[in-house]
């Protein structure tokens, strides 16, 4: 209703305005006509079709405002009263509220819209590289070209599928492989190998392998030994050996007699036969070259005579028909062996048995230094001892081997009844062989130090440097501490050596009766220990000497006092000076040799302000100078450089050294790795989606996450720029 009122009030006003307009227009046209007539030139008036106007109207229709738009309120005004037109009115009202459709955009405008949309789309698409770019910028090292072909191990299946046998050799190999049913795929085991794997557990296999290894080592050792002994030319040695053999054979025979009389009988026959052969031979008949020479010498030489007698006795013994007593022979042997006192050599193995480390070193050391030479051939010395001991002791190797066998037996009994592999059988065979070898071959003697041999020889290495000898000395010192004997000077140690000899001698009679005097008179194994204390004392003396010498040389110098004096001087120089402003002046006499009054002096002498305490105040042995070194300043950084915020930060970056002098090789390589690594002769292609590292962004995958430009990005760029300005 309010609107309608508005319309009503509006209407008359607009109508009156319209009327006014019409009048004005009329007047205006008249004026124009008048002006045109004034010019005089008659203008040809164009024929104009015009709409019917007020002037020519016949139907009293007002055409005023023909050019004007129809205004909705005018229409609405007329339909005010009738209710039947209510719907139309409503519709018209609705139309009035709606805005008119705008004109289509101009070409420029529409293009611009398209461009903007395209730009947004493209920049979004490009932004997916953001992460990759940032990562590359921050990267410690970039390796170009980006597409590095990585070496990889091709699985055998792949290789085999592409493989074709061409040459006859290849075909042969392939046929062989097929024969053994060699599988191509993992696990690469033939059925046989699998079976063997199934047959034996790992532990067992390892154990067996270890045993086999040991056995093999022993065998090779024996072989080497046998070969060595075979080469020995010493007659005495072979004699002793033979004797030992025969004794052993006898012993065996004894055993055999008890156990198996028949076998013993055949053995006896054999022995008899050998004896007969011996009798038949011309040995021990005083007819050899040696025997003849002895016979000549026997007249004058007691020893030669003795030897001859010995041989005669032996001959008699051999030619006797009755089987001889072994004991008697032994006694004769002792005499025959004669001059070599066994005890000397016996000491060594016996001690070895107790502690193999004790003896080796000094002896080897003695050899190295060349101060003392072993008078006897070691082989010679070893052999008789063995001959003496063989009867009692079963050799170590034998024990070992038997031990093996025992263990194996027990294991086999205890363990599950597994099928014996080929290896096992072979091993057994080896053992048997070894054992038989040991038992049957009497030439091989079993020295007590058999296994320790290599250890000792290792110790025999060259010791030529002072340090090594010193180190040795230390070891010896330790040794001495273990022993209860008193340690002392060189003379003492020599005594010690002799005492050691005595010690060995004491032990010896347990095994054999021997002449102590002879042992001591003979060249014994003197253990000369250049004991550590000796050299230490030497050193001490020397050091003392040195000190004395130095003291003498620098007798006049008092370094400490000098330093203190210097420091005092520096302190004095560093102290702020008092300012003396005293001048002679009024009220005083002039002339030379006159001083201003004490009062004046006191007044004009300006005392200095004591500065901060010196930093080396409480450090008596240090002078700290706080003056700036101008020469060094030229090399120093004045202000904190750009990427660093604080001085400490910068200093820390400088302080850590990168050179190989201070860093291990690996660390050095890491520290000095170049920022950009290129391969010469390789073309570097622009980055592509495949190159972008997969763990950071596969751009397609994480595109949405990377779309938003992070503020870091702009900062990253701006920072260096600021600095540059």
């Amino acid at each position, binding site marked *: 209703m309010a609107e309608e009122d508005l319309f009503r009030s509006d209407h008359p006003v607009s109508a009156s305005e319209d009327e006014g307009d019409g009048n004005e227009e009329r007047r205006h046209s008249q004026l124009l006509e008048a002006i045109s007539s004034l010019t005089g030139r008659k203008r040809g008036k164009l024929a104009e079709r015009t709409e019917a106007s007020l002037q020519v109207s016949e139907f009293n229709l007002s055409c005023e405002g023909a050019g004007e738009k129809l205004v909705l309120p005018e229409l609405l005004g007329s339909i005010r009263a009738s209710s039947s037109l209510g719907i139309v009115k409503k519709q018209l009202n609705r139309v009035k509220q709606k805005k008119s459709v705008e004109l289509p955009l101009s070409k420029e405008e529409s293009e611009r819209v398209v461009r903007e949309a395209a*730009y947004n789309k*493209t920049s979004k698409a490009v932004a997916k590289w953001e992460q990759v770019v940032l990562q590359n910028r921050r990267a410690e090292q970039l390796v170009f070209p980006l597409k590095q072909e990585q070496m990889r191990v091709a699985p055998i299946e792949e290789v085999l599928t592409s493989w074709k046998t061409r040459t006859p050799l290849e075909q042969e190999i392939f046929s062989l492989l097929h024969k053994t049913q060699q599988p191509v795929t993992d696990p690469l085991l033939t059925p046989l190998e699998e079976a063997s794997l199934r047959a034996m557990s790992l532990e067992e296999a390892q154990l067996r392998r270890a045993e086999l290894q040991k056995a093999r080592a022993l065998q090779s050792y024996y072989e080497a030994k046998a070969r060595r002994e075979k080469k020995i030319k010493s007659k005495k040695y072979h004699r002793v050996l033979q004797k030992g053999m025969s004794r052993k054979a006898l012993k065996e025979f004894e055993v055999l007699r008890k156990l198996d009389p028949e076998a013993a009988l055949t053995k006896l026959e054999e022995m008899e036969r050998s004896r007969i052969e011996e009798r038949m031979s011309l040995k021990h008949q005083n007819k050899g070259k040696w025997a003849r020479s002895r016979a000549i010498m026997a007249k004058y030489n007691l020893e030669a005579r003795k030897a001859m007698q010995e041989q005669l006795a032996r001959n008699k013994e051999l030619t006797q028909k009755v089987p001889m007593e072994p004991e008697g022979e032994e006694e004769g042997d002792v005499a025959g062996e004669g001059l070599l006192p066994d005890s000397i050599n016996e000491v060594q193995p016996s001690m070895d048995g107790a502690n193999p480390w004790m003896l080796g070193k000094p002896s080897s050391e003695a050899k190295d230094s060349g101060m003392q030479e072993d008078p006897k051939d070691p082989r010679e010395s070893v052999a008789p001892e063995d001959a003496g001991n063989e009867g009692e002791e079963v050799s170590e190797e034998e024990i070992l081997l038997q031990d093996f066998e025992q263990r194996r037996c027990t294991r086999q009994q205890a363990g599950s009844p597994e099928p014996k592999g080929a290896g096992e059988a072979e091993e057994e065979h080896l053992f048997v062989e070894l054992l038989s070898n040991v038992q049957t071959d009497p030439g091989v003697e079993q020295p007590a130090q058999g296994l320790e041999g290599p250890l000792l020889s290792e110790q025999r290495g060259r010791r030529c440097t002072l340090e090594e000898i010193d180190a040795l000395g230390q070891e010896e010192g330790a040794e001495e501490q273990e022993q209860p004997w008193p340690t002392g000077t060189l003379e003492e140690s020599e005594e010690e050596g002799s005492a050691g000899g005595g010690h060995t001698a004491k032990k010896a009679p347990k095994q054999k009766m021997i002449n102590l005097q002879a042992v001591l008179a003979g060249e014994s194994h003197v253990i000369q220990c250049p004991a550590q204390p000796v050299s230490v004392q030497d050193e001490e003396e020397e050091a003392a000497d040195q000190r004395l010498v130095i003291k003498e040389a620098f007798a006049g110098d008092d370094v400490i006092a000098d330093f203190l004096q210097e420091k005092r001087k520096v302190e004095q120089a560093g102290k702020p000076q008092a300012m003396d402003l005293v001048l002679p002046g009024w009220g005083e006499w002039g002339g030379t040799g006159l001083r201003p009054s004490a009062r004046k002096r006191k007044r004009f002498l300006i005392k200095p302000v004591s500065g901060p305490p010196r930093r080396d105040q409480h450090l008596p042995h240090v002078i700290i100078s706080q003056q700036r070194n101008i020469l060094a300043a030229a090399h120093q950084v004045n202000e904190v450089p750009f990427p660093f915020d604080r001085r400490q930060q910068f200093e820390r970056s400088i302080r850590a050294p990168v050179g190989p002098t201070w860093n291990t090789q690996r660390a050095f390589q890491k520290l000095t790795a*170049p920022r*950009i690594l290129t391969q010469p002769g390789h073309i570097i292609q*622009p*980055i592509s989606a495949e190159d972008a590292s997969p763990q950071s962004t596969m751009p397609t995958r994480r595109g949405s996450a990377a779309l938003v430009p992070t503020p870091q990005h702009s900062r990253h760029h701006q920072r260096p720029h600021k600095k540059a300005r």
Partner: protein
Amino acid sequence: MRVKVLSRNPDDYIRETKQDLQRVPRNYDPALHPFEVPREYMRALNATKLERVFAKPFLASLDGHRDGVNCMAKHPQSLSTVLSGACDGEVKIWNLTKRECIRTLQAHEGFVRGICTRFCGTSFFTVGDDKTVKHWKMDGPGYGGEEEPLHTILGKTVYTGIDHHWKEAVFATCGHQVDIWDEQRTSPICSLTWGVDSISSVKFNPIETYLLGSCASDRNIVLYDMRQSTPLKKVILDMRTNTLCWNPMEAFIFTSANEDHNLYTFDMRFLESPVMIHIDHVSAVLDVDYSPTGKEFVSASFDKSIRIFPVDKGRSREVYHTKRMQHVITVKWTSDNKYILCGSDEMNIRLWKANASEKLGVLVPRERAAMNYNQKLKEKFQHHPQIKRIARHRHLPKAIYSQAKELRIMREARRRKELNRRKHSKPGSSPFVSEKKKHIVAVVK
């Protein structure tokens, strides 16, 4: 008296075989190696001095052209091959290892305006002042055969530049508009225009290969999208941009060489202000090319020098010039990141080392380790005044030197004037405008 003699165990220093490395016993106890900082400083100082001593970047000059070299192109597959077009319409293909021309062909009448190789390296395209685009085979004709292009396209207007798509058989030319061509057709697939002006160069983005950038003579840089066949955005600078180059490792970064002696690196997404302004040239910059690692670029200038800029630094790290080198029109950084080629007005193509003091040829591992160490030391102590002084020192010809000085004075005067003006005007009436924003006139959407 006993004499003490130094004696050593030969096992410590005698090799088992001659092939073994010499053992160098080391003790890393820091107490035994004192003064690490001063010692490393001295090493760094020496390394810096040596670097300057060995800085001999000029390698070779390839002469043979009979007019100024106007454009160059790298071979995409072969490092030793380079193509160049001269102002007399001649195109030469060079072998860099032999330093000789392997093929010459008269491609156009008048200038060879642009040259580009196909991505496969079997053929190349040239455009010239004779309004033609020509497609040539890389291999020369057989004996007695004539040098003839595979295709020739005759256009209506002069083409001023050409670039080939990095992956597809599509190339783009520029002149009055940017045309995108299929290799098989004689009419462009689409023509991209935005206002009427002559476009001096067009370049494909090497990563997002559908993107194009062009620079026109009405001082603007326009970006296009080939897929939507529409321009994207236009940025108007103070002065004309001669050419631009996309970063091969960063898809949205490109650098433009401007007439106002500067280079502007833009982020495609934020064109309102450049990411970095590279100042150092004293005359118009005519060409720019990125190193394949995307960390540096080289620019050729009318001031008869070429400069190498790190992407993130505002000043150049190196300037190359020789007495005989005139205005450098075109420059390229080889694809192995080792060498730089520049073609100049006086008909020569020059080959430079990208790293002036680098030792060429095979390096023994120890040598390489020493070089890396020296490099690291130089980096570590770069802020120390003596080292900085030595490392920065370069010789410049008098013309450039005096011009640079003059420019510096001018810049200072301008700054001072602005400062004074600001001082004497109402606070806030003369706002601060950052240096980056100063050179951007407008960004048109």
